[in-house]
C-alpha cells in the first residue's frame, strides 16, 4: 500500500524527523529524542502535526439525531463552541472508534476520528446515518496540537482572541497568525494547550509563526513517540492498543462517556455490562522492580497463572518507572493489588495503580 503524505511532510523531513509508516501515512515519530520531546511538552511547549487524524462534518436537520444514535455520549446538552469525547459502539459489544465531537451550531458538527479508522468510521456512520449530510474533510485540514504549560503564552502572541477564556473542551473559530481556524482547548497529553484545525493552504505560515512565537520557551516539534508516552502517563486509551472492535468499552473504563439517557447503538448490551460488571477491567500498572512492560506481555499471579494482558506499556520519562495499561480480572483491579508482569519469562513484581501515573 502506498503511504500518504501529510501536507507539511517536507518541513518535518527538513527538521530531521525520522518518518515512519503509521495508519497509512508517513509520520514523524521523533525529531531528536523521545525523552527530550516528552519533557519539552511536560515543562514547556511542543507542537505535534497530527494531520493524519480524520475530520467529518455532520450537518442538517437530522445531524443531532444521527449523532445521538451513533455516539455513546449524550450530545443534547452540548453547547455551540463545546467539544465532547465519546466513542462509536459497534453492534457486537466492541468499539468502532473513539472520537471528539465539536458543535459548530445546532445543525452542524465536526467529528475528529483516528487516522487508522477513517474508512471504517465513514462506512459505519454512513450505514447508521439517520438522514444527516456527511462530508469527509480530512484531506483539507492540517491539525497541529500545541501542548504544554507554555502553549497558551506562545499562541496568545498570535491572536487577538483571549485564549484564557477558552475553557477545556471548548473552542473558538478565530484568526491566529492571520489565518482563520478552529482553536480548541483539547489535547492528548494532559499538559494543557490547544489543537488548531487549519486550512491546508495556511499551514506552512502558521507552523512558522508558532515556532517563532515559541522560541523564547524553547519550543520543539514533537513526534508520535513522545505523543504515545505522554498519553500513556495520563492513562488515556489508544485505539488499536487498549480499545478495539472486540474490547468492551465498559471494561475499558469508558463508562463515564456512556450515557443511557438516550438510545444508541448496542445500548442494551452495554447497560447490562455496566450493571453486572465485566470479567476484565482496564487498569494502570506500575513496575515495582526493574523492567519495562510492553503491549502483549502477560499479567500473572505468583503461581504464574495468567490474570491479564498488557495493552500499552513504556517507561515514564517523568518518573523513570515502567508503566502500563492492561486488562486484569475483575477483583484484582483495585489500586495497590500486587501482581507480576511477565518480561522475558521472568515474573517482575508490579502493582495496580490509579491513573494518571504522574
Amino acid at each position, binding site marked *: 500500500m502506498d503511504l500518504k503524505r501529510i501536507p507539511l511532510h517536507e518541513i518535518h523531513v527538513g527538521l530531521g524527523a*525520522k518518518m515512519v509508516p503509521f495508519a497509512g501515512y508517513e509520520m514523524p*515519530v*521523533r525529531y531528536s*529524542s*523521545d*525523552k527530550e520531546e*516528552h519533557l519539552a511538552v511536560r515543562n514547556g511547549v511542543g507542537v505535534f502535526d497530527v494531520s493524519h487524524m480524520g475530520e467529518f462534518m455532520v450537518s442538517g436537520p437530522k445531524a443531532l439525531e444521527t449523532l445521538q444514535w451513533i455516539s455513546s455520549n449524550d450530545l443534547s446538552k452540548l453547547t455551540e463552541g463545546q467539544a465532547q469525547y465519546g466513542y462509536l459502539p459497534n453492534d457486537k459489544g466492541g468499539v468502532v472508534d473513539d472520537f471528539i465531537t465539536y458543535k459548530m451550531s445546532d445543525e452542524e458538527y465536526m467529528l475528529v476520528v483516528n487516522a487508522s479508522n477513517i474508512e471504517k468510521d465513514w462506512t459505519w456512520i454512513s450505514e447508521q446515518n439517520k438522514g444527516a449530510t456527511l462530508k469527509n474533510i480530512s484531506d483539507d485540514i492540517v491539525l497541529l496540537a500545541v501542548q504544554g504549560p507554555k502553549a497558551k503564552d506562545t499562541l496568545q502572541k498570535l491572536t487577538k482572541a483571549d485564549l484564557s477564556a477558552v475553557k477545556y473542551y471548548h473552542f473558538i473559530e478565530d484568526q491566529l497568525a492571520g489565518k482563520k481556524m478552529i482553536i480548541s482547548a483539547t489535547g492528548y497529553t494532559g499538559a494543557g494547550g490547544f489543537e488548531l484545525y487549519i486550512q491546508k493552504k495556511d499551514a506552512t505560515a502558521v507552523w512558522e509563526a508558532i515556532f517563532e512565537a515559541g522560541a523564547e520557551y524553547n519550543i520543539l516539534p514533537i513526534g508520535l*513517540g513522545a505523543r*504515545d*508516552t505522554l498519553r500513556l502517563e495520563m492513562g488515556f486509551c489508544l485505539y488499536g492498543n487498549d480499545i478495539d472492535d472486540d474490547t468492551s468499552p465498559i471494561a475499558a473504563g469508558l463508562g463515564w462517556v456512556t450515557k443511557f439517557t438516550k438510545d444508541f447503538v448496542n445500548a442494551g448490551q452495554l447497560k447490562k455490562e455496566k450493571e453486572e460488571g465485566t470479567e476484565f477491567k482496564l487498569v494502570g500498572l506500575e513496575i515495582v522492580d*526493574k*523492567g*519495562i512492560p*510492553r503491549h502483549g506481555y502477560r499479567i500473572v499471579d505468583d503461581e504464574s497463572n495468567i490474570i491479564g494482558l498488557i495493552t500499552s506499556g*513504556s*517507561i515514564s*520519562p517523568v518518573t*523513570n518507572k515502567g508503566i502500563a495499561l492492561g486488562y486484569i480480572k475483575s477483583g484484582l483491579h483495585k489500586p495497590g493489588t500486587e501482581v507480576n508482569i511477565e518480561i*522475558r519469562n521472568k515474573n517482575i513484581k508490579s502493582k495496580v495503580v490509579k491513573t494518571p501515573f504522574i
Partner: protein
Amino acid sequence: MNIPDNLSYTEDHEWIRIEGDTAFVGITDFAQGELGDIVYVEVETIGDEIEAGEIFGTVEAVKTVSDLFMPVSGEVLEFNDQIESNPEVVNSDPYGEGWLIKLKITNKGSKLLSPEEYKSLIGQ
C-alpha cells in the same frame, strides 16, 4: 552515519572490535538511532558460552525492546557497568563508552561484515 573503518559488523546492527582472542561488542550508530532513547540494557549471561547468532541480552528503549545477538561464538566475560547508571551513553557514544560486552572468542565464524558491506546493508 558514523561507521568506523576499524570494526566489523553484523546484520543485526552490532559492531565487534577484535583484539586477539577477546573482543568488544556494541550496537551501531544506525541501531541506536532506530531504537531512540536507550533506558536499560540487560545482560545476564556473564560467564556463559554462547553460539554466534544466539541472544546474549536485550536493549530497552523508550519505545521498543530489542534482543542482542552474539556476533561470534564465545564466552561473555564482562558487561559494561557504566551503562547501568548511564544508559544514554549507548546513544551518545555507541562505538566507544557505549560498548556493551567484552567476550572471549571461541569461533569467529564467517558472517561478519566489513564496514563497506555494512554501509550497503543500511543503504548508505
